[in-house]
C-alpha cells in the first residue's frame, strides 16, 4: 500500500502541470469550504465572546418555577427551599470546573436610597465576600469588603462607578453616609469591572436590566438584607468557571448541588442561566447563511471530481500497455484496481491539502483586509482532506474498474 502511494506520487510528479490542473477544481472547492467554515467559526466565536465575555466565565444560578425564572425580589423564599449558607457555597467551590462562587441577593430599581436630597434608583445588591472577585470587580477608590465588615455587622456600602457619579456628582463619596431603607450606611469604596469594554451581557441581571436605565449598583454586606427588607428573599449564586467551555457544566453542577442540599422537590428548582444556549442560537442564525455557500463550493468539488475521473480515464488509456504487461506478469485485477484508485485518491488528497492551505491563507487574508472574524477549525481541515480522499476514491472508481477489466492481449497489442 505504502509503495503504491509512493509510486502514485512518482507518477503524478512526472506530470506535474497536468496533475496540478487536475487538482485545481478540488483545490478551489476545498479552499472555499475552509474559508467559509473559518468565517462561520470566527463569527460564532465572536458572538460567544460578546455574549459571554472572554475570560469572564460567570454563570448565574437562580431559582426557577417550571423552568421559568422566579420573580426574585419582594418575595419570600418559596416553600420547600431552605436558604443557602456559606457551607453550601463552599461546597460549590469544590466542584471540579468551578473556580469560585458567590451568594447574593439583588433588588433591581431599589428605591429608598438617598444621599442628602439625591434619590438613587439603581440596583441594590446584598453580597458576600466573594462577590467582587467572582464578577471581576476591582476597587477604584477606598476598599472592598473585608471579613470584619461581615463579622462585625458593619453598615458599609460600596458603589460601582456609575452609581458613584450619579449620586455624588463628582464629590468624593468615601466616608459619606448613604441612607438605605432609612438605615445609615458608610461608603467605603468604589468598584468597577476589570474589563471596561466588556460584553453587553454577563449575568442574569445584566441580561434583564442592562440598559441605560440602570443607574448603577450599590453593594452592601448580605447580612444587611434581612435588616433592610426583613424577610428571607431568594438568593442567587454567581459561579465563575475555570474556562469558558466549562461554564455550562459548572452552572449545571452548581444548580444540581443547590437542589440536592436546599430544595425538597416540587416545581421550584435552582437552574443555571445558559448563555451558551443563547449563543448557539445566534450562531445558528449567522451560520445558516454561510452554510448555503458551502453547497456552492460543493459544486466546485463535484466538477473537480469529474475532472479527476476524466484525467484518470485518459491515464488508463495511455497506460494500456503497462496494465497489459502487469496482467501478463500475473497482477490480479484487484491490484490494478487499487493502483488506479490509490492514484486518484493521492491526487485528490494532495489537492485537498493544498486547498486547506489555500483556504487558511484566504481566511487569514479576509480577516486582515476586510476585518471579517475568522477562526481556523482543525477538525474541519481534517474532514476536508478526508473528504477529498473520498472524492478521489469515488471518481477514480470508474477508471480503475475499466483498467482492471482490460484484456491483457488487447492491452499489449495496442501500439
Amino acid at each position: 500500500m505504502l509503495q503504491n502511494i509512493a509510486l502514485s506520487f512518482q507518477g503524478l510528479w512526472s506530470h506535474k502541470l497536468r496533475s496540478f490542473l487536475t487538482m485545481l477544481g478540488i483545490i478551489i472547492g476545498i479552499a472555499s469550504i475552509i474559508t467559509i467554515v473559518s468565517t462561520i467559526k470566527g463569527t460564532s466565536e465572536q458572538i460567544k465572546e460578546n455574549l459571554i465575555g472572554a475570560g469572564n466565565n460567570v454563570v448565574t444560578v437562580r431559582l426557577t418555577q417550571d423552568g421559568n425564572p422566579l420573580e426574585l425580589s419582594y418575595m419570600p423564599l418559596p416553600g420547600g427551599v431552605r436558604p443557602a449558607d456559606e457551607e453550601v457555597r463552599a461546597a460549590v467551590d469544590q466542584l471540579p470546573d468551578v473556580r469560585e462562587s458567590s451568594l447574593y441577593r439583588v433588588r433591581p430599581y431599589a428605591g429608598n436610597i438617598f444621599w442628602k436630597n439625591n434619590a438613587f434608583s439603581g440596583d441594590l445588591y446584598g453580597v458576600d465576600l466573594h462577590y467582587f472577585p467572582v464578577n471581576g470587580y476591582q476597587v477604584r477608590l477606598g476598599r472592598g469588603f473585608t471579613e470584619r465588615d461581615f463579622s462585625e455587622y458593619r453598615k458599609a456600602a460600596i458603589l460601582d462607578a456609575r452609581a458613584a457619579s450619579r449620586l455624588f456628582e463628582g464629590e468624593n463619596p468615601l466616608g459619606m453616609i448613604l441612607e438605605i431603607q432609612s438605615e445609615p450606611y458608610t461608603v467605603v469604596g468604589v468598584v468597577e469591572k476589570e474589563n471596561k469594554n466588556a460584553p453587553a451581557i454577563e449575568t442574569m441581571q445584566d441580561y434583564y436590566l442592562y440598559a441605560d436605565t440602570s443607574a448603577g449598583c450599590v453593594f452592601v454586606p448580605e447580612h444587611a438584607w434581612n435588616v433592610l427588607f426583613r424577610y428571607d428573599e431568594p438568593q442567587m449564586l454567581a459561579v465563575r468557571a475555570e474556562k469558558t467551555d466549562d461554564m455550562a457544566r459548572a452552572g449545571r453542577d452548581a444548580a444540581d448541588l443547590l437542589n440536592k442540599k436546599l430544595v425538597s422537590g416540587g416545581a421550584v428548582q435552582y437552574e443555571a442561566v445558559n448563555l451558551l444556549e443563547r449563543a448557539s442560537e445566534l450562531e445558528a442564525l449567522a451560520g445558516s447563511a454561510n452554510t448555503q455557500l458551502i453547497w456552492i463550493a460543493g459544486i466546485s468539488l463535484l466538477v473537480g471530481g469529474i475532472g479527476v475521473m476524466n484525467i484518470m480515464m485518459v491515464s488508463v488509456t495511455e497506460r494500456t500497455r503497462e496494465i497489459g504487461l502487469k496482467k501478463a506478469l500475473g497482477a490480479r485485477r484487484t491490484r490494478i484496481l487499487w493502483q488506479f484508485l490509490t492514484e486518484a485518491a493521492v491526487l485528490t488528497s494532495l489537492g485537498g491539502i493544498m486547498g486547506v492551505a489555500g483556504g487558511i491563507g484566504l481566511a487569514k487574508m479576509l480577516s486582515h483586509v476586510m476585518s471579517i472574524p475568522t477562526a481556523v477549525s482543525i477538525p474541519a481541515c481534517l474532514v476536508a482532506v478526508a473528504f477529498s480522499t473520498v472524492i478521489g476514491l469515488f471518481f477514480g472508481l470508474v477508471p480503475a474498474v475499466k483498467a482492471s477489466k482490460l484484456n491483457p492481449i488487447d492491452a499489449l497489442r495496442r501500439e
Partner: protein
Amino acid sequence: MILEMRDIVKEYTLGRTASRVLDHVNLTVEEGEYLAIMGPSGSGKTTLLNLIGCLDVPTSGSYVFAGRDVTKLSQKQLADLRNREIGFVFQFFYLLANMNAIENVALPLLYQGVHKKERMERAAEALRTVGLEDRMKYRPDQLSGGQSQRVAIARAIAARPRLLLADEPTGALDSQSGAQVMDIFDMLHRSGSSIVMITHDRNVAARADKIRTICDGVLAEEAVENE
C-alpha cells in the same frame, strides 16, 4: 509433460463474420524442451503463444497446463498461474519506464507477495544470470535494446517459472545483441528451462531442439528435430 493442447480453435468475431485464427492445433511441450515456432506474418503465432501463456482462452479445445485444465480456471487463478508458472519475453521488452532494472525484474515476485529483501536478492540473482549485475539501478531509457531485452529475460526467469515464452525476442535487436540474447536462452535451456519461442529467423530457430511451423492457423504436426 508441461502442457498439452488438443484441438484448440481460436476465432475472432468481427461484426458478423468469425475468422478462425487457430484451426485445431495440437501441441505438447515436454519438461526441459526448447521449441521454436515459425510461420509467416499473420499466421497466428502470437495468438497461439497467448493461449499457451494463459493470457487468453481458446474458443474450443482442451488445454491442460501442469495438470490443470486451463479452460476451467477463473481470472484470478489464471493470473496466479501466469505469475508463478510462466515467464514472458516480448519483442519490444515492455519494461516499466518509471522503475529501474532491478525493480522491473522484481515485479513478478512483488505480485507473489515476496518480501522486499528476498525480492531484491532474487531479482539481483536473475540480473546476474543475464550478465547485467552492473546495470541494476539503470532505468529503461538508460539501457540499450539488447540490455533491455536481457532485463526482460531476467524478469521472466526471476520467479523461476516452469515455462519461458518468447515472442520474437530478437526481432527488435541488431544481430550482435540478438546473438547475445540467444546465448542466454541457450544457457537457460542447458540449465533445464523449458522454452517456447516464436521467431522469423531460421538461424534463431536452429538453436532449438525442435521447430514447428504454422501457416494460416494450422500447426504442422511433424516437427523438425534439430541435432
